């Protein structure tokens, strides 16, 4: 069994480490202003304009290249809406602007998942209990086995196929994540309780479906089917991209998962350490970072989830330098390298693996 690439730190080192990151956070937060406000409003406008252009081009079925361009633009719009706009606004990264339009708590996005469910599963559970087995549902989403720490069951033999279907329908998977169907099927949740939890999710799904698969196609008259197909392809394009980026954030080869015991008396420094060791970055150009919603800077995002994501690129070299000084592994690589490692995990852990020693991952030296 491979050992973690990060060395355990003493308590003093962890405190010092945390203080340096706190100082970095404070410095950036104090510098927020017009530039960041303009940025997120530009992203909002870009989402709206690409969406409008994409939807109009879909009505050009008689000129197939334009229809294809329409699909790509609409897919691009949904990716931007999902990642650089929705994900980041919902985190409250722009709450400091005091603009009710950009308030994380009230934000809704163009996806079947509700903002409310996301605030619970992602903002709270995933970001607080990052990579703690049994606490962070994002570890395999209750569907996949990605770490040897997860117990093997025969169902996982179908995992390569399940993973592909899950990728195609990722927005639906995210939408029902908070319902925790597993608990329902095990009889731990009353039908009435499930119905109540499903109601807002169902409403959101219905409205999204009516928009993409009924109203816009109907406006096309005889073009009903080409428009419907274009909208479906754009949604699938978004699902595949977000799946790939999100999986690269926590399921690459060198990330650590943690037992629940790490939470006992966890200091701020230890929390930072866990965020870094449980996350991995992606290298790429400026446009690539924007398309990932800056989740290519997954490490910076997990350290400072409420800092505007357009700042992550600026602080990444400093975070990396701090990590180097403390001997903490800073996990980064190209999309293909990182996603290759994710695929390897999906394939490898569909099969049984040797039990893992209980305290394999240690944050502290003593």
């Amino acid at each position, binding site marked *: 069994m491979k050992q973690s690439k990060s060395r355990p730190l003493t308590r003093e080192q962890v405190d010092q480490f945390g203080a340096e990151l706190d100082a970095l956070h404070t410095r950036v937060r104090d510098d927020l202003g017009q530039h*960041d406000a303009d940025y997120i409003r530009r992203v909002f406008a870009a989402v*709206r304009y690409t969406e409008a252009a994409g939807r109009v081009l879909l009505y050009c079925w008689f000129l197939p290249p334009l229809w294809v361009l329409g699909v790509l633009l609409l897919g691009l719009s949904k990716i931007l809406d999902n990642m650089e706009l929705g994900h980041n606004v919902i985190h409250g990264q722009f709450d400091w602007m005091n603009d009710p339009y950009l308030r994380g*708590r009230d934000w*809704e996005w163009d996806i079947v998942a509700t903002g409310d469910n996301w605030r619970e599963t992602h*903002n709270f559970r995933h*970001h607080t209990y990052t990579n703690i087995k049994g606490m962070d549902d994002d570890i395999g989403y209750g569907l996949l086995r990605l770490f040897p720490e997860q117990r093997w069951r025969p169902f996982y033999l179908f995992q390569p196929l399940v993973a592909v279907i899950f990728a195609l329908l990722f927005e639906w998977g995210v939408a029902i994540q908070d319902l925790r169907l597993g608990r329902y099927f095990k009889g731990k949740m009353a039908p009435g309780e499930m119905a109540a939890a499903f109601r807002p999710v169902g409403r959101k799904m219905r409205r999204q479906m009516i928009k993409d698969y009924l109203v816009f196609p109907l406006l096309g008259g005889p073009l009903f089917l080409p428009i419907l197909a274009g909208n479906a392809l754009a949604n699938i394009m978004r699902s595949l991209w977000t799946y790939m980026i999100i999986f690269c954030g926590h399921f690459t080869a060198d990330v650590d998962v943690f037992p629940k015991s790490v939470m006992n008396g966890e200091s701020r420094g230890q929390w930072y350490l866990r965020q870094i060791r449980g996350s991995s970055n992606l290298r790429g150009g400026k446009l690539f970072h924007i398309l990932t919603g800056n989740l290519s800077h997954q490490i910076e995002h997990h350290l400072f989830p409420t800092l505007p994501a357009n700042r992550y690129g600026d602080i990444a070299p400093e975070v990396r330098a701090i990590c180097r000084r403390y001997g903490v592994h800073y996990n980064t690589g190209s999309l293909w390298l990182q996603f290759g490692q994710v695929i390897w995990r999906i394939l490898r852990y569909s099969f049984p693996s040797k039990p893992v020693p209980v305290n394999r991952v240690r944050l502290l030296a003593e």
Partner: protein
Amino acid sequence: MVASTVKKLLRAGDWLATPLNAARYLETINPLWSDHGRGRVERLIQETPDTVTLVIRANGAWAGGEAGQYVQLGLDIDGVRYWRCYSLASPVQPGSREFSVTVNRLDGGRVSTYINDCLRAGDLVHLKATAGDFVLPAQRDDQKLLFISAGSGVTPVMGMLRQLIAERSGADVVMLHFSPDYAHCIFHDELRASNSEQRRIHLAVTREDARDGDLAGHFSADMLEQVCPDWRSRQAYVCGPSSLMSAVSELFLGAGLSSQLKQEAFVLKRAEVPEGAGGKVGFVVAGKQVDADGKTSLLEVAEGAGLTPEHGCRMGICCGCLATLKEGQVRDLNTGEVFGESGEKVRICVCAAAGDVSLEL
């Protein structure tokens, strides 16, 4: 008719715009097409060295208001939206929806300084509905009115005066306005020009020698008797610094005429908070108030008071605990920073009271 058709179309458009609404798409093209109150600054008029008038043209979504009421004006300054109340210093023009507000620079006032130094014609502002009963009586043509103002307190009074002049009202007006000196007398020329048999406008200066016919010194009962012997029979309005407000209201109270006096105060008192001190925390929804120190998070204070506010991580990252600040200021326990604008959402799990605060919880 047109408006209701537009509304119906927009509602139909919402099916295409879900989860947003159609108006959000329209205002991406032109912010004034918003379904929220927005306005464009058409002109700026420098009234005195530290006072500027904004002539604002509002969009159709803004409900309008009456001269003398205050409007909440929202400005984005370095990316952050601040709201301030300003009196309508003119009636709202029915066709163009134009109105004006006049803003006096306050020492250390972020918004008033920005308006005086940085705002330009063509800039956009946010508008919320007007409020306040500092307005002219509905039946006013045969009324006798008395306006008393000082400093920037002249702005709502000017709004009412301009309205009376515009509608050629038969109301009989006496006005008494105080300024430190002539250079700082807002609307000086217009006030002089508006003086007439029917609207007798008296200017008083407190830190300069008075010129022909003007008065010198601060407000007193004698001065009022001198310029307006029949003040007891008038509907009166007063707006200005607290010293003027209390002098006038005491005079009316003593005469048993308080019901004839309308008052408008601009300044809210904000206590100076010593470093690290807490204060009283009010929870307006629950109707509770408790004492808190300056280092216990408001979330813990609320829980200690038996409330169960929504929350998530309890460490300031998930924003699941945001609560609306009604009054007062809070201290970010992570950074020590003291902040807080009324209406701002704060993360109560990492903020403590900095003086008295009240929260919408």
